[in-house]
């Protein structure tokens, strides 16, 4: 009887050890994926703020790049239009800048001074992440980062 308990215990411990190692590998992979997605975001934004436009091909390439890292991610691009109000304060010309969000859902053209906001967020886990999350019931927060830059 003692022998049988010991065997069950041993098998259970071995499974948990394997699970821990598996979790470690998945977490490492996920962090690498996150860094690559962040890098894709910066590269895409750099090209947009210089060219002042998003072409179909560049957008397709960007979507292809960020979705090729396991996790199911989605993106949202917002344009904040620069609006300047002129005032004459005590004889000194003053310009006050405010930003108005473009209601257009998929802005493709930008003007100098506009802000472009790119939000990339995770909609679902990859299969490996799902397994780890179900087994351990603890995992890192979803990927949800925003990058706002000004169009040159």
């Amino acid at each position: 009887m003692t022998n049988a308990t010991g065997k069950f215990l041993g098998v259970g411990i071995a499974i948990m050890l394997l699970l821990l190692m598996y979790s470690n590998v998945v977490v490492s992979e996920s962090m690498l994926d996150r860094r690559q997605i962040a890098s894709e975001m910066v590269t895409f934004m750099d090209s947009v703020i210089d060219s002042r436009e998003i072409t179909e091909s560049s957008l397709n390439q960007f979507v292809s790049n960020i979705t090729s890292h396991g996790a199911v991610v989605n993106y949202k691009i917002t344009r904040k239009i620069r609006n300047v109000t002129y005032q004459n304060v005590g004889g000194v010309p003053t310009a006050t800048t405010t930003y108005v969000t473009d209601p257009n859902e998929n802005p493709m053209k930008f003007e100098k001074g506009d802000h472009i906001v790119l939000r990339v967020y995770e909609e679902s886990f990859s299969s490996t992440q799902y397994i780890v999350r179900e087994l351990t019931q603890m995992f890192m927060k979803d990927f949800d980062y925003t990058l706002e830059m000004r169009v040159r």
Partner: protein
Amino acid sequence: MARMLQLFYWLPVLFMSFFMVEIYLSLNAEIDSFNNEMLQRQVNASSDAAVLEAITNNSDIESDYSHNKIEIDPDVCKREFVTTLLGNLGYSVTEEAIEDFENTAIMSLQICMYDGVYTYYQDRYATRNISQGALHNRYKLVSTPKAPYFYTPEDEVDTAYALTLDLDKAYRLYTVPSEDVDGMYNLKINTVPVPVSHITRDRQLTVINNTVSEWMKYALIKSYGTGDINKSYNIPAHANSITGAQPVRDLNVIGIVDLSDYGSMSDYTVMGIGGNRIVKSDPVVTYIRDGVRYWNYTSKCGDLNLLSDVKAYDSEYTAVLTDKAAFDLKGRE
């Protein structure tokens, strides 16, 4: 023997516990590192936006970089920096959020101008809560006056300069007798720039960057300090100096953001450096000479007032043209 064997089964469990703690710690460190990296990018983007806003706002009010000067309201840069960073962090940009973020997260913000640097820091003030009757410390982001880039050459006696980012010209300092106290002198800055070709550009950049670095240290001590000189301050080591890299070569905004008191469990402190090339404005003018209409850059026109048959058409460029009277006609066109 069987009991001994059962005891040995606990060893893997102990090992697993350590292993799990190790995984948790390494995962936490990795996430912190990634968040720091993202914050670094976001603050850099905000600094870039602040510089661009400064330049654009300057041209909006038609005080472009004529006469080698850039006059910029530093609050314009500060607001752009804060609003961009709030957007980056996913917050709504409201006046309340701006004020809250300014007075909590920004430890130092330096607007490096053409002829001086503005430094924002957290200034402590005490306020009394009426209901409790106790004094509470609050912080508010305030700015120093514009600090010139002073430089005294070792080989020039009684000469001092206020350097500029032009690196070709600087303002000379001179003393005048004080009107208030007999026998005392006040230091004045000559408003006419003089050429400083005898001071190497590298030396000027070193002086300018050292000045900015010193003011940054001042701002960090004020921001992180409690006002008690007997206490030690915990200033992030990687964000207390900018010497070496010489990032201030042009108009620049340097911001140090600390999110430890702003909805963050870990210490995220980063220094973002913006920067943009200063391009002197050179508007195109049109004029008629010998019955032929020409278009040319103002810097290449020489003194148009000296030509009797030249007339500038666009009234908005009149001021620019009259200020070009010192240009030599030789070599033009």
